[in-house]
């Protein structure tokens, strides 16, 4: 009866779990890297970016997508402040796009492009596919 009620009111099923697992497993298949190595790469990547801007380490989202024949790494790294704590901030007026931290990843054999998107206070947006248009580095909003 509980099963019946669950079905009737549509309790969250296993397909969400399945999709998340697939995402991870295909990422590791494509990169030929163990999940642990991917985590390490993410950490190192963020360490490099952190030398220039202050980032929100808790809300970093790094994914990998196959685009035609190549593999792309998409990093969504919220930037808390463009001004570095020790004052290397040379950011420009809001009209002109600020130079973005452009981390080129040499992950796996074929990881090709990477784009770091900056956002100020919004949580990382997780749009997976059909993001080609927004892949151009978005202008960093002035703080």
């Amino acid at each position, binding site marked *: 009866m509980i099963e019946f009620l669950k079905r009737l009111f549509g309790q969250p099923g296993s397909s969400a*779990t399945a999709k998340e697992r697939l995402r991870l*497993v295909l990422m*590791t298949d494509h990169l030929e890297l163990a999940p642990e190595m991917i985590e390490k790469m993410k950490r190192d990547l963020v360490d490099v970016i952190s030398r220039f801007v202050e980032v929100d380490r808790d809300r970093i989202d790094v994914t990998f997508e196959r685009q035609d024949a190549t593999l792309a790494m998409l990093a969504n790294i919220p930037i808390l402040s463009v001004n570095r704590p020790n004052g290397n901030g040379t950011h420009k007026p809001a009209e002109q796009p600020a130079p973005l931290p452009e981390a080129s990843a040499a992950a796996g054999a074929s990881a090709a492009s990477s784009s770091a998107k900056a956002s100020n206070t919004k949580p990382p947006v997780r749009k997976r596919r059909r993001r080609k248009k927004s892949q151009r580095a978005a202008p960093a909003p002035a703080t």
Partner: protein
Amino acid sequence: MHQLQPNPSTSSGQAPSTSPEQAEAQASAATAKRGRAIVLTSGKGGVGKTTTAANLGTALARRGASVVLIDADVGLRNLDIVLGLESRVQHHLLDVLEERASIDDALVADKHSEKLFLLAAAQSREKDEVETAKMQALVSRLCERFDYVLIDSPAGIELGFKNAVAGADEAIVICTPEVAAVRDVDRVVGLLGNRFKPQLIINRLRPHLVRRGKMLSVDDVNGILRLPLLGVIADEPEIIVTTNRGEPLALQTHTATGAAYHAIAARVAGEDVPAPMPAAAKPSFAERLSAFFGGKRR
């Protein structure tokens, strides 16, 4: 194609130079402490080899046996997914065969059963990179440490299948009640020959279709194959859910299918329990209605 031979190195426990007679003698002497290497195969794909391997391994481990599952499907590995261990795989079968990792480094401990381990296949390699002799030697070494070495064979009868079989000394064949699957199992059993003592699991039976004469029955299937029957598993949507979650159904002993896997495990272990059969579910209201009106088809 010649019939395949069971693993000479597990049969002899020594270098393959031993004569067959010596091998037989030593095999019977060593049987008591040696683990059993069993290949799960089918010819046709998608009949449930991997699901069966995961569930049988889980059920055997629950009985207290130590079990290692080898995914022999190099290039298309899936046993890690069915067990929910995909994020823990660091090294794989080819790493071990090529001595880049030790057996202990490569074995992944199961989440649920402490006596169950997985040796994953390499995903980005090809099947012809596996050396048959090394595969046989690896299975022999695992047999020294584990009670059961279950080898999940890839579909087909190409090199991957031959390597999976090479290490084994027994076989379990999985068949669904479909003409194509029965034909393929028949072909595989012919290739295996009697030395692997093939036993049969019939998977994905839908009793309501059998009753309506739209699916082969257990007797139909085994009337053709004539193999010792380990058990019959019903086709349940639950299987898809457990794969989604990475939790084999054998963990749920209260479900009919979970219990069926445990009965099969008991039979594999040599216990004299009846082969599990899906309960012939009562005809549904709709079925009775259509039978009443003599409806042949929807």
